[in-house]
């Protein structure tokens, strides 16, 4: 039976709570209501209020209480109702959670789950991709799964990880994609990218919902005789630089793709990594396809123009291929 991206996360969380009594959930409206997106639907009934902690509207307290519980040896999984509200608990994450181990050897094994991304007419405050705030903060791990399989495997790894993990769930994927999942327990390692399509002419390096955009573009380009390799980073920190560079060595042409806005986005880090590591292999400029540097607009006409899509990727890829 096929499992959606949302259901995969739900299952991963559920199984980890069954497996380890130290795992618990905390967040706004996650109990009786089951969470804004229903990821924890049924959890309260099954696990009880001790392990499914509904909180006041207090993102700093959600993050802070998770840290406190993590320091005490529990494994809290906190939910931000939308990734856009993570900025309300920001200091706890970037200054408290991120630096405890480094400063006084105190592990903070917490997971912060955040539905992020656009494409659902959410407008400026329900569509953001805030991963780079955390990618640039040493001490945090950052995970952005693109598939149901990875979402389940990575949420499990995140929960078992002994460092603070930011887990970004692309909300447009929640109910849009599904696949058959193994019935037995499995994990996907944090820090390993995956070549999701092999190719020889050009590499698209991407993550999150844009993996699907890249695959769509690759399909069209294949018909035109352009062989595109697609690398799904899966984890942004730690970054699997080896897999990225390996792909560049193979194709010599790189298109970096993300839904996040351009300036200061992940593409920058990738471009720097590539030029400093495999510069000699490059056979053309490194090209970026990203959202422009604006807030996420609400209206469909604008949001469509704002979000990267296969067309935009194809156009840039064609140009790069011919370069």
């Amino acid at each position, binding site marked *: 039976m096929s499992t959606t991206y949302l259901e995969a996360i739900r299952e991963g969380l559920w199984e980890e709570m069954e497996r380890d009594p130290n795992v618990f959930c905390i967040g706004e409206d996650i109990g009786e209501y089951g969470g804004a997106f229903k990821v924890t639907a049924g959890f309260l009934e099954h696990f009880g209020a001790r392990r499914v902690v509904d909180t006041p509207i207090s993102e700093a307290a959600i993050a802070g209480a998770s840290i406190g519980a993590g320091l005490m040896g529990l494994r809290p999984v906190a939910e931000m109702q939308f990734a856009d509200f993570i900025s309300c608990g920001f200091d706890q994450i970037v200054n408290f959670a991120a630096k405890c181990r480094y400063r006084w050897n105190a592990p903070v094994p917490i997971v912060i789950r955040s539905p992020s991304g656009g494409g659902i007419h959410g407008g*400026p405050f329900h569509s953001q991709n805030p991963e780079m705030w955390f990618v640039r903060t040493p001490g945090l791990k950052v995970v952005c799964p693109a598939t149901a399989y990875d979402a389940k495997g990575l949420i499990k790894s995140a929960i078992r990880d002994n460092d603070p993990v930011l887990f970004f769930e692309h909300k447009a994927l929640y109910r849009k994609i599904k696949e058959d999942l193994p019935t037995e327990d499995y994990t996907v390692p944090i820090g390993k990218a995956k070549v999701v399509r092999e190719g020889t002419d050009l590499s698209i390096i991407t993550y999150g919902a844009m993996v699907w955009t890249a695959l769509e573009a690759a399909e069209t380009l294949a018909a035109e005789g352009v062989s595109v390799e697609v690398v799904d980073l899966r984890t942004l920190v730690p970054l699997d630089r080896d897999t990225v560079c390996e792909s560049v060595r193979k194709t010599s042409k790189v298109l970096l793709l993300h839904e996040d806005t351009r300036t200061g986005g992940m593409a920058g880090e990738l471009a720097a990594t590539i030029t400093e590591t495999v510069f000699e292999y490059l056979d053309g400029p490194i090209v970026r396809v990203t959202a422009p540097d604006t807030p996420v607009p609400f209206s469909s*006409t604008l949001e469509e123009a704002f979000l990267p899509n296969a067309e935009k990727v194809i156009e840039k890829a064609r140009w790069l291929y011919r370069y």
Partner: protein
Amino acid sequence: MSAVHAAGAELDRSVAAAGTPEAALAHKCLYYMQLMREVEDRIERKLYRQGKVLGGVYVGRGQEAISVGSGLVAIPEDVLFPSHRDMAIFFIRGISSRRVLAQYMGRVGGLTRGRDGNMHMGDMDAKVVSIISALAATVPVAAGAALAMRYQGSNGVAFSYFGDGSTSRGDWHEGVNFASVQKLPVVFICNNNQYAYSTPLNLQMACANVADRGPAYNMPAEIVDGNDVLAVYAATERAVAHARSGKGPYLLECKTFRMTGHSAHDMAHYVPKGLFEEWGKLDPIVRIQQRMLEENWATQAEIDQVHAAVTAEVDDAVAWAEASPFPDPSTLLEDVYESQ
């Protein structure tokens, strides 16, 4: 300000016809509450279901007395910070139902030109500041506006609106504390509708009333029946008098009930059914109508006429909004900075 409303003529007429200032006030209250109810009904029960309104839709059905009763106290100098359930504030400040509907439909005629949706709108000319999604974020911003008014020698007051759940946020505390230390002219107006999304009060705060938070800031706090528009009006007058006279902020807790789910997609299964019935009997529009009849401030025919005028206004507004174009994608990069 009524000129911008299609039903403005009817409002002016009915206010003028009212015998006493009290009756005139009641007429105004009824008009704005009816207008808010009608616009929100149209959005939530029609346009949203037709797919013409996208994104989140939060309505203030049953809570109209709060924004109307308090908003009508504001003078032009005052700056208002409505929450996501205070649509009437926009109408009272002269923003037409046309533009509000266009906003919801993502059209260029909306206050954000399609860049943002629903109640995420503002207009500094009308002195209405847009919320951002993060709850209570406007609370310190309202304090800053109040600071600016005192700085500028204006006698304006900032009206800061929020729900019960929003008082849990750190920004709420920081904003209220700063306002009270600085004795700023702010009235903090809480719509305590007993839920925050699915979260009931007892999971939100340990105190019985939001007003119990007043003493922490040495700030007077008053509880008022939030479904009685004239009571809200009177309490707001007290609050504003305090703030305007330089004595510092004032907290008004309006007890009410959210007669809907949190937003249009939420069926509110978590709310005990009896509560809807109980509070349904306290509907603020029905109550002001009854009062108007009892006090002979209006006849049933006049009351019906308000409703008819409002319905006609909203029909026109919907048509206007639907005729407003979607934003041109070529404008995508505009307005991030002053000049690009």
